[in-house]
């Protein structure tokens, strides 16, 4: 069976809405998703200046329950879960035994014996298989296709919009806080999380809530934003994307993601021994800007005649109005850098990450 054929693509509950809004729909990780509603750059700017609304219902939602859930996940994942407070979200990852990153994800401690998790759509099946194989007494459920979904409301106006929707502004005071918010659409489960570097929320909606909540947020001023702008925004904020900056051949230490493997020096978890045995990193992730053309994934990076790295992701930044890219680069390289764009050399400038400062804690 060809799983890439349109007939077999999953659709989010909002697919008809996206079409009605004129979205260009594309296959993504087995789902038919909105790439843009007309302008990737315009949608990116809407998020930085006001608020944008993303349907990210393709992302996989897992629920883990039981008295042993936290302890078992503490071993199965890279980050510590035992000490994750109830009411908080954490970024972490699934590691291989050798410390390579199989996926990155967010855990939400919804109760003493209950942990909710969101993983990348492209890794849903593999993550499920690996996690359930590493867990013994924990009850596991894949909720991805329960008819509900995830709406990400992101940008400086997102608090105002959500407060208007709920009739209260008293929720998620801190970054990574969880809340259950009363609203005219019933209780909304939300988290102060996102993938844009802006102040924002991810709202976990039921099948009954998803369409009316989407509609109301748009009425209140949130601009629908597609996956194209999502990639621009996350790269501007230098947030890693599985399959680009991170993958099985990359470990969290060299990727500067120690916060995703909290307690790694002492805890017992899959991949922990390998991380503790690693030599000093020989490469790191760097930021690049270019004058005109976008340095795209896979383009080789040179310092003079020496091949020193490779581009992970590149986009045209709507905020900086120029191309930006991340690349893996050998450490200690101290000269002008060039990328090879399909046989032509182009000078690039090395810059600090992130390209656009985070405001997610504001």
């Amino acid at each position, binding site marked *: 069976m060809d799983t890439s054929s349109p007939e077999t693509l999953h659709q989010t509950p909002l697919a008809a809405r996206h079409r009605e809004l004129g979205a260009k729909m594309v296959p993504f990780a087995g789902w038919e998703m909105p790439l*843009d509603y007309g302008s*990737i*750059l315009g949608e990116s700017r809407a998020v930085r200046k006001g608020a944008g609304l993303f349907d990210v219902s393709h992302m996989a939602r897992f629920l883990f329950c039981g008295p042993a859930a936290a302890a078992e996940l503490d071993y199965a994942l890279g980050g510590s879960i035992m000490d994750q407070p109830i009411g908080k979200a954490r970024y972490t990852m699934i590691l291989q035994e050798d410390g390579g990153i199989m996926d990155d994800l967010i855990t939400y401690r919804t109760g003493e014996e209950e942990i909710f998790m969101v993983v990348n759509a492209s890794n849903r099946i593999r993550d499920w298989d690996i996690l359930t194989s590493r867990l013994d007494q924990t009850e596991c459920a894949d909720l991805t296709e329960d008819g509900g979904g995830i709406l990400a409301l992101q940008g400086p106006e997102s608090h105002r919009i959500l407060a208007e929707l709920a009739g209260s502004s008293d929720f998620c005071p801190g970054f990574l806080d969880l809340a259950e918010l009363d609203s005219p659409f019933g209780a909304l489960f939300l988290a102060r999380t996102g993938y844009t570097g802006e102040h924002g929320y991810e709202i976990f909606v039921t099948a009954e809530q998803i369409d009316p909540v989407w509609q109301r947020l748009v009425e209140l001023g949130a601009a629908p934003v597609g996956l194209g702008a999502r990639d621009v925004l996350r790269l501007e904020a230098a947030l890693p994307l599985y399959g680009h900056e991170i993958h099985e051949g990359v470990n969290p230490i060299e990727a500067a993601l120690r916060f995703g493997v909290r307690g790694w020096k002492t805890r017992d978890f899959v991949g922990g021994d390998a991380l503790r045995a690693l030599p000093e990193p020989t490469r790191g992730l760097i930021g690049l800007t270019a004058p005109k*053309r*976008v340095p*795209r994934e896979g383009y080789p990076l040179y310092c003079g005649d020496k091949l020193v790295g490779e581009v992970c992701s590149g986009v045209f930044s709507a905020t900086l109005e120029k*191309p930006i890219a991340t690349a893996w680069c050998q450490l200690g390289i101290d000269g002008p850098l060039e990328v090879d764009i*399909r046989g032509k050399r182009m000078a690039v400038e090395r810059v600090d990450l992130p390209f656009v400062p985070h405001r997610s804690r504001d």
Partner: protein
Amino acid sequence: MRPNDRSYLDSHEWAQLQGDVATVGITDFAVEQLGELVYLDLPEIGQSVTRGESFGEVESVKAVSDINSPVNGEVVEINSDLPDALDPLQSDALNSGWLIKVKVSGADALDGLKDAAAYEEVVASES
């Protein structure tokens, strides 16, 4: 339907012949598929071009794409303002967004290309 005063290549370029000079561009469909344009690379005057082979590149927010020549010949003029101001290509690809003019060998220079109706089928199959 797109204008029938010119011929089209499957890879979404067009050529319009006046005397022995063909004006060459990419179609509005190609632009629509690419999305917001950020870069255009055109050849030098005097460079020879070959049907079906790349003479330039166009890049959008989403992707980079070769531009193939619908004709054989020599570049005699380029739309030199275009690389620094892509608006005409973005909004008017079939007219003011033309890319290059090519001196061709004769009146049969467009033979074998698609007419507007045949090109419309290509568009329909890719839409």
